[in-house]
């Protein structure tokens, strides 16, 4: 991984006494935040990410709140990789990459992102109960709000549409992972595909590999 702009953590005990430069080379932790709505397949998406970076030899931590999420609540995953990762949770304001499956759930975490962060949002609006009931407004212009702060680092794709064209809306999550994979040019396409195959039953391989490659082309 060659990233230069990241803020550097100094996690390793002995490293503290070493020159700063050495620590920078070792200790970089990358923070990826995923957000969506229960049932959108965020868990599989984060599992694919974790497999890829774990297999690439990094220390990783992936943390999510389960529980009531199946019941349509919001779902978030904190995923971190690096030489040595301590906290399972990303520090507020330290997100390098946001992958969001839904506009409102993207906006909810906009303050978490570093000024240099990159953002991929799925073009989907899922109304929470208060909006369904006409008691609250669904926020408009989410893409524009993101662009105002993050300029060209904001990408929006329609995962469902791409997945539907492939024959199954359910694969939208893997389409998004495909698009998101472009943020990590150091990781080869085969590494992603291997992880997808490893996590899914063989009968789902064909669809999901196609979903991944279509998504990868979409950015």
């Amino acid at each position, binding site marked *: 991984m060659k990233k230069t702009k990241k803020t550097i953590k100094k996690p390793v005990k002995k490293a503290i006494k070493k020159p700063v430069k050495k620590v920078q080379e070792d200790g970089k932790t990358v923070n990826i935040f995923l957000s969506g709505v229960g049932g959108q397949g965020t868990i599989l998406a984060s599992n694919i990410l974790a497999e890829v970076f*774990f297999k690439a030899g990094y220390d990783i*931590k992936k943390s999510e709140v389960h529980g009531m999420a199946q019941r*349509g609540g919001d779902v978030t995953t904190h995923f971190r990789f690096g030489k040595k990762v301590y*906290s*399972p*949770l990303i520090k507020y304001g330290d997100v390098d990459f946001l992958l969001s499956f839904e506009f409102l759930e993207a906006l909810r975490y906009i303050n978490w992102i570093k000024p240099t962060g990159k953002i991929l949002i799925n073009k989907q609006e899922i109304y929470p109960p208060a909006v369904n*009931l*006409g008691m609250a407004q669904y926020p408009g212009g989410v893409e524009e709000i993101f662009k105002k702060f993050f300029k060209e680092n904001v990408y929006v794709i329609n995962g469902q549409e791409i997945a539907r064209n492939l024959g199954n809306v359910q694969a939208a999550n893997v389409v998004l992972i495909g698009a998101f994979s472009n943020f990590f040019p150091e990781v080869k396409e085969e590494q992603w595909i291997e992880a997808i195959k*490893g996590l899914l*039953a063989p009968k789902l391989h064909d669809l999901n590999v196609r979903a991944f490659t279509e998504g990868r082309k979409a950015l």
Partner: protein
Amino acid sequence: MKIFYSKKYRAESHYGGNMKEMMQGNSAIARGAWEAGVKIATAYPGTPSSEILQEIASNYPEIYAEWSPNEKVAVEVASGAAIAGARAMASMKHVGLNVASDPFMTLAYTGIKGGLVILVADDPNAYSSQNEQDSRNWARFGKAPMLEPADAQECKDFIKIAFEISERFDTPVLVRTETRVAHTDSPVVLEERKESPTPLGLDRKDAPKYTMVPINVRVRRKIVEERMKKLEAYADTFKYNTMEINSREIGVITSGVSYLYTKEVFPQYSYLKLGMVWPLPKKTIANFYKKVKKVIVVEELDPFLETEIKALGYKAFHGKDLIPNMYELSPEIVEKSLKGKAYKPPKVRVKQDDLPKRPPNMCAGCSHRPLFYALKKLGAFVFGDIGCYTLGTAPPLQAVHTTICMGASIGGAHGAMKALGSDGLGKVCAVIGDSTFLHGGVGPLMDVVYNKGNSTTIILDNRITGMTGHQDHPGTGFTVRMEPTHAIDYEELGKALGVKSIRKIYPYNIQQTMEVVKEEMEKDEPSLIICENSPCIMLRRAKPMEKFAHPVYTINKEKCRGCKMCLEIGCPAISWEEEEGMSVDGHKRKGTVFINKDMCVGCEVCAQICKFEAIIPGTK
């Protein structure tokens, strides 16, 4: 969704010469139990602990696994196995240990033979719990050692050591996790299973050790205190009580995930990380105080370590004066608390308070929804219980009016009826899920009959433990390993308890449901109402959608008057679209409703509510 892991792929995950696998804390606990030679694993589901037993059941055939009807039974079964010489583990969420506290508190006296570990998972921030209690207090109260892992590797290692401690000191051992440990994946080095050295067998001569009648209690009581002394000495040698000396100015005493948060933001400080949070290593603490000038105690929830450290006569430079004693910690909370004004928060781009929240909701087609709609129409005061149906308390239904602990609904309604007398008739009922009823509802229903009560109990039988992710229970007909077994018949059980008035309802029929519930609430005798043909809409094996006549419903936009009646059920598939206009029969409207085809399952509940026949069958 359960994700399918190909075994071959997992086994290929080599890392630096060792077999390393990425694992959730809960999976690592299961793995640790397997490696430790555990023979018996019991549990009652509860977030964030439920995956442990599921993992054991699906991956480790050497271990007998069971969903027990509740946590008390789970600990009792595990303790029996341990007395017979087997290594045994019972796992549960924090409140589960309240239920199991009775056997736990006395098992600390009897001790064990095979290792006994009780795994308890806390839920700081109460993401899915009825309270936020700090289980470390049970260790002090129960006089048993407690280990606290911080990540998946430690989960596995600590479970294995817990069994060694258990057998070496003849004591049950508590292992405490919490959400961010239980549900965080991180790399784990795999090892092989080693059978336990303890021989199996029961010996009648051991009776004084295991029979807690007063004369034996007094003997064991002393042993408990002696054992705590030995454990204290052991704590000073415990290799997972680790010291890292960096800065001589500030040292942090901490444990578990609090260590990870603090280390992340203050890598320059020195650390004493306690892997064993009870009893405390007194010499190690003394040593740490010699090495650093000022000590800060960072811990989630209660000032457990801080109180104890202060009681040893030390000063804490900071602790709960700065670190919050409620909700969960995080790197920024630790940083903000300790830095105070020097903390610079990141820039706020969008104010979050303005955004609509997304609370969990019952699924589209859930059988609980029409029942709560009926109860709301009846104006009943509903003593609620714990499960997906607790969501009936949220707007717009707002049809659940108490939730205390599992099983409390039935006793609650009974007590209220005794207090209100005949004024309560027709106004009060208890609702309880199938799993919850079998966990803690049978006793209270017995009480209603025995003490000549007149309350009404409704069992919301959706054929599964829904809220915690679909675990089987004694009413479903399957074991944790999906072997067919006896399924409890709630009607027969009700009869055996002495309930005379037992009715069945099909909750999707709102009219019938209202009639039956009203009649039963008005009766001056105990009533039991059982929901039938109402499996969880996500439970595929029960074919929950088959009974519905149509795959979806849709809105006849011409007829819709925009009266919003159908929005009162809070179905996630129905939404409001504002647009002034008029229905065909000439009624002005502010908008119309819209049904999301992808979500609707055709349960017909909304169609029963619409007075204008504007909700009609559709096609997918």
